[in-house]
């Protein structure tokens, strides 16, 4: 009653922005499950990471290796961003005009930082594709990329550790949705990513 109850996390009127999760391309590629938090049309959509965390927004840093312009009337750009573990598929359309202009301007290859929203699509053959709708993209330096690999590895190791003992709703849901998750796979993913940074 003092206003500190846990359900008061979102205080009236004070908007809380969804954090940008740190995730490697290989983990995002394993995602199979997304859900809405709430019934509302505008309720945020979350992609559930296999390591047991919801993500409405992600922050990635990698190498933009190619970009293509598509569409006649509704122009949009697709691009591929490579991290030490795999490939992110990014896109920016006319609903993200600023992001699209930023992406259009960048010469490949370049280190880029991308803030965006992950989405899952099911392909006709039943397999899933995770793509990232870009909110903002900028050219960065290698130092930033290396920092991101450290940051992302640390966050993923934290998630893997929590998976062993944690009981949060996201962890419970992840164990339901991804019953075959092997923590060792994700530790190795972190190790391999870190090992690619030259000492």
């Amino acid at each position, binding site marked *: *009653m*003092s*206003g*500190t109850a846990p359900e008061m996390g979102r*205080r009236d009127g*004070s908007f*809380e*922005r*969804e*954090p*940008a*999760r*740190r995730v490697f391309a290989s983990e995002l590629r394993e995602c199979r499950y997304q859900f809405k938090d709430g019934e509302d049309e505008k309720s945020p959509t979350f992609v559930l990471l296999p390591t047991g965390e919801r993500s409405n*927004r992600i*922050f990635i*840093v990698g190498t933009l290796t190619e970009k293509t312009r598509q569409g006649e009337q509704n122009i949009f750009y697709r691009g591929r961003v490579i991290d030490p573990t795999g490939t992110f598929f990014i896109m920016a359309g006319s609903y993200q005009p600023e992001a699209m202009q930023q992406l259009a301007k960048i010469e490949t290859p370049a280190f*880029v*930082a*991308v*803030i965006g929203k992950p989405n899952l699509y099911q392909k006709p053959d039943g397999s899933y594709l995770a793509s990232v709708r870009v*909110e*903002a*993209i*900028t*050219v*960065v330096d290698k*130092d*930033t990329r*290396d*920092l*991101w690999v*450290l*940051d992302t*590895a*640390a*966050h993923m*190791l934290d998630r893997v550790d929590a998976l062993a003992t944690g009981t949060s709703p996201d962890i419970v849901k992840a164990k339901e949705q991804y019953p075959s998750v092997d923590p*060792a796979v994700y*530790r*190795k993913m*972190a*190790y391999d990513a*870190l*090992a690619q*940074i030259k*000492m």
Partner: protein
Amino acid sequence: MDYSEVTERISRKFSKSGKEIDRQKVEGKLRRLIDEFGVQPSEAERSVSNELAKEFNIPAAGSGGGTGAGAGGATEQKAIAQAQPGDWVTLEGKVVSLAAPASPAIAQSGIIADESGGIRFVVWAKSNAPKMKEGAWYRIESAVVDEYKNIPNLKVHSGTTITEIEKTDPLIPEPSPIRDLRPGIGSVRAKVIQEWEVTHDRMLQSGLLGDETGTVKFVIWKEPSKEKLAVGTVYSVFYAQVDEYNERLSLNITTATIMQEEGDIVTATGGDVEIRGAIVHIAPGSGIIKRCPVPGCNRALSRQNYCPIHEIQPNFVYDLRIKGWLDDGEKTHNILLKRDVVEALTGINLDQAKEIAENNPLGMDEVFLQMRDKVLGRYVACKGREIENRLLVNTCERMHFESGEHAKLLNRAGGAP
């Protein structure tokens, strides 16, 4: 929850009027209101007290329809600092400030004080009490202390007797350390260490006061003859209203007595936080901005040089700032960078930004774009104070790759069974 404390308080209140309450019954009522109906404890206490008062035929707080049975010897004379919510009190004090009544139901409101401290008072219009004068001493018999917005409040109702008394004490309150402030009325001796942008038309000034023990937000609302405080100056602030909101205290010093002091105070710099993360968004209104030149205003102007208060201001002053979001992967923090921090982080100083804004075809937008390209997506360590969910950044430095951190993580990832 434990109801015995509240019950004890209610019991004490009524035993003063010579009434014995049925503790079990009272506790049961409280439990029902709080547990079953989700009533706030303070409201439940009030409700149960009023019900009992009616039963015993004692005028309830604010009801105005009583017979005055509780007057006279039924209440004890108290020092003002000892007055607690729920008490019936008789006290003597000096009216140290009067405020404009917030509602026609209120005849007078202000602050009354004695040597021990001050308390806010409200005189209800229907109490037909005589008007009190600022600076005069009064004996107030049989008033009720309740709580309004968590602050003790002395209610003068129709059963209260007010008599002016002969006393001309100057009455200078003892300032308390900021750390020891509690909701109610407080006096401090402190330095203005920051001035913030005002967030409301009726607000004259807001900022941060600090002394050796801590800092506290202050606000002055616009009223005739109110003046702003100067940053870096020490003041004695007597009888400020200490409000509590979201578990943070703030001082409303609109009706306080303020005296400029000599000398300086070494203020506590505690409360600084450091957040490391990536800058994930630069908000509109960042980059180079124009501010209103009217002394003390300093609001950001629109593109058309329009100030919300002072209208068109062609002789604006340029400034730099960055508003954005800093994200550590778990939480996103709203950050505000001032001019010197922006200059250090972007390498673009105010003169260079002015040059770009005035000569580039994109004008001020070009400064925004150049700054965004220099900071968006970068890892930084920001130090500053978190106030009202926004980090006011004092220093913001780019982070750099550390091989020690790298080695530690490699061990952690590979060292597990």
